[in-house]
């Protein structure tokens, strides 16, 4: 359509980009803060270039490689979906999946239970309370302490835990005795690894702290004036308002621990003892870069990616649907 016809209905404007038509209509009564898309999405365009080069092309190469038998030195040999069939009865892979699931189940809730109170306690004084120097100092150092594990290099964090959990002369062994099984028995070692990962809560902490600070101050004050106790405000105001952020963090942590967390585990346990902490990333690393089975590892990586995408979609879709229903006109 010609640009000289501003009166044209969007539906008939064939040259309009697709998103212009799928955007919800501008609603003067729309809740504050939900303005129509002003085109900020375009700011991401340069990022798309990086996305294609750094993620898209390697991903395509991974898919292609997954259809071949390849060990890095020989010529890739096309094998089709053989690797998928192989994966279906690969006991090592299944053990890794179980180990990963167990670790996710330990790390994600633990981290949330640690980070949520921490972020809320370190957010600021209650309405009407004076912000005292001691409080400000405590909050400042508390925040530093909470973020520190996530800003030191992962390998350094893992080496620290290697010392902490050293079964012979580490502080934990000295305190609890040498029979704890940490780093020597599967169960206790999983707990040790989970503790190490759960305490890397700096990023979640910052996100939650920011989300809490972004809650309208007047709303919290109104709740205080209306006579709500701290626990009532927590249950009926703070947590419901933070729910989307908490949900996002749980999903993010789940995906990261299941598919990306790698360095600290490798340094602390190298997947042991007896494969107890060989999670997916550790297994893939070993299969690919130690045993050189690059074709198989590529195939499994793509499968893991697809499975992750499916899980995320199945988690997010109902939420978006629910939100749409709730915000719809009644």
């Amino acid at each position: 359509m010609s640009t000289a016809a501003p009166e044209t209905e969007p539906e008939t404007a064939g040259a309009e980009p697709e998103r212009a038509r799928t955007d919800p209509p501008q609603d003067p009564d729309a809740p504050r803060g939900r303005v129509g898309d002003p085109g900020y999405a375009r700011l991401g365009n340069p990022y798309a270039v990086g996305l294609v080069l750094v993620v898209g092309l390697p991903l395509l190469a991974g898919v292609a490689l997954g259809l071949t038998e390849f060990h890095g030195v020989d010529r890739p040999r096309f094998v089709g979906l053989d690797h998928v069939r192989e994966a279906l009865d690969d006991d090592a892979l299944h053990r890794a999946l179980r180990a990963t699931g167990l670790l996710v189940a330990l790390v994600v809730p633990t981290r949330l239970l640690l980070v949520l109170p921490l972020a809320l306690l370190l957010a600021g004084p209650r309405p009407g309370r004076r912000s005292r120097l001691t409080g400000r100092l405590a909050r400042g150092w508390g925040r530093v302490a909470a973020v520190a594990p996530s800003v030191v290099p992962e390998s350094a964090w893992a080496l620290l835990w290697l010392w902490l959990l050293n079964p012979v002369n580490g502080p934990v062994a000295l305190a609890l005795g040498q029979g704890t099984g940490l780093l020597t028995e599967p169960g206790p070692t999983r707990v040790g690894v989970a503790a190490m990962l759960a305490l890397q809560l700096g990023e979640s902490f910052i996100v939650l702290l920011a989300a809490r600070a972004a809650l309208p101050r007047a709303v919290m004050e109104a709740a205080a004036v209306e006579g709500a106790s701290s626990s009532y405000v927590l249950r009926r105001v703070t947590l419901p308002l933070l729910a989307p952020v908490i949900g996002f963090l749980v999903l993010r942590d789940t995906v990261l621990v299941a598919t990306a967390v790698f360095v600290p585990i490798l340094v602390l346990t190298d997947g042991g003892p007896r494969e107890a902490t060989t999670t997916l990333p550790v297994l893939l690393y070993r299969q690919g870069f130690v045993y050189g089975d690059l074709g198989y590892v590529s195939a499994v990586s793509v499968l893991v990616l697809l499975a992750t995408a499916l899980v995320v979609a199945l988690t997010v879709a109902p939420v978006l649907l629910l939100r749409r229903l709730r915000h719809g006109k009644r």
Partner: protein
Amino acid sequence: MTAAPPTLELRGVEVSHGRRRVLHALSLDVRPGELLVVVGPSGSGKTTMLRAAAGLEPVDAGRVLLDGDDITDLPPGRRDLAMVFADLALLPHLDVAANIAFGELARGARRREVRGRVKEVAAAFGIADLLKRRVTRLSGGEQQRVALARAALRRPAAHLLDEPLSHLDPVLREEARSQVQVLRSRDGAPVVLVTHDPHEALAMADRVAVLREGRIVQVGTPEQVYETPADTFVARFVGPLPMNLLARDDGHVGIRPEHVRLGDDLDARVERVEHAGTEAVVHTVTERGPVVLRLPWGERPAVGDDVRLGWAPAHLHAFDRDGRRLAR
């Protein structure tokens, strides 16, 4: 009315933000059933005063009393006060009914027990058919009614309203004034309303308190404040147009624009003429300073005209060098 003990009283309240003192030994009392409007320009400490009364602002000195009891050290939730915030502070994740009932539910009441009262309050504010709606789906005027209904439900000892009308457009604002009257007439609890708009203050108040730089400059009925302003600040701040101030040796003489006529007391030249409905607002300069007057639109002079201004001596206000009003 003057004999009744005050419901809410601030005695010498001082508040600082960092090193900056926002309220200077501020004393103010609110009497049973009255609508007290605290008016002042931006940054005069109006909101801080209200927040100090509500317990949201720690006070450095002074006491806050409610029905004679010292509540200075009580947390906000135990003061039996209700507050309507400038941005209303509704709970965005709850529906209208839950917002109105929030205070009672927070104090342990069950939804069933308050349902009837919620309906009754909602009806009083004309939002009975919106109870199941999420507050984020309401218009500004509707949200404002929800905020007032929330304040009304608990029947607190006093209501504190922080610029409750400022975010409404002029048409809704007129209507919302009557909603504030509903709030007051329901339970006889006094209402303290804070605004930066002197028109609103004169229109609504039983008594007006003028606040400037953290100090109360004058308290009185709208007539008293308008007709006998305590100083030149009040004289210029309160009223549809600022009072004209003419310099003289020992201070200023003031005269309201509506009391200036064409006469023979002072030479003036017309600088600007503004349209104001049936009237013209005529800005002139004189040897004693600028003078504004109102004339019927048909009798307006042209820009650049030389005119002579006059007035009745009874309409003059005298102020000393520090701007304080001199007894006539």
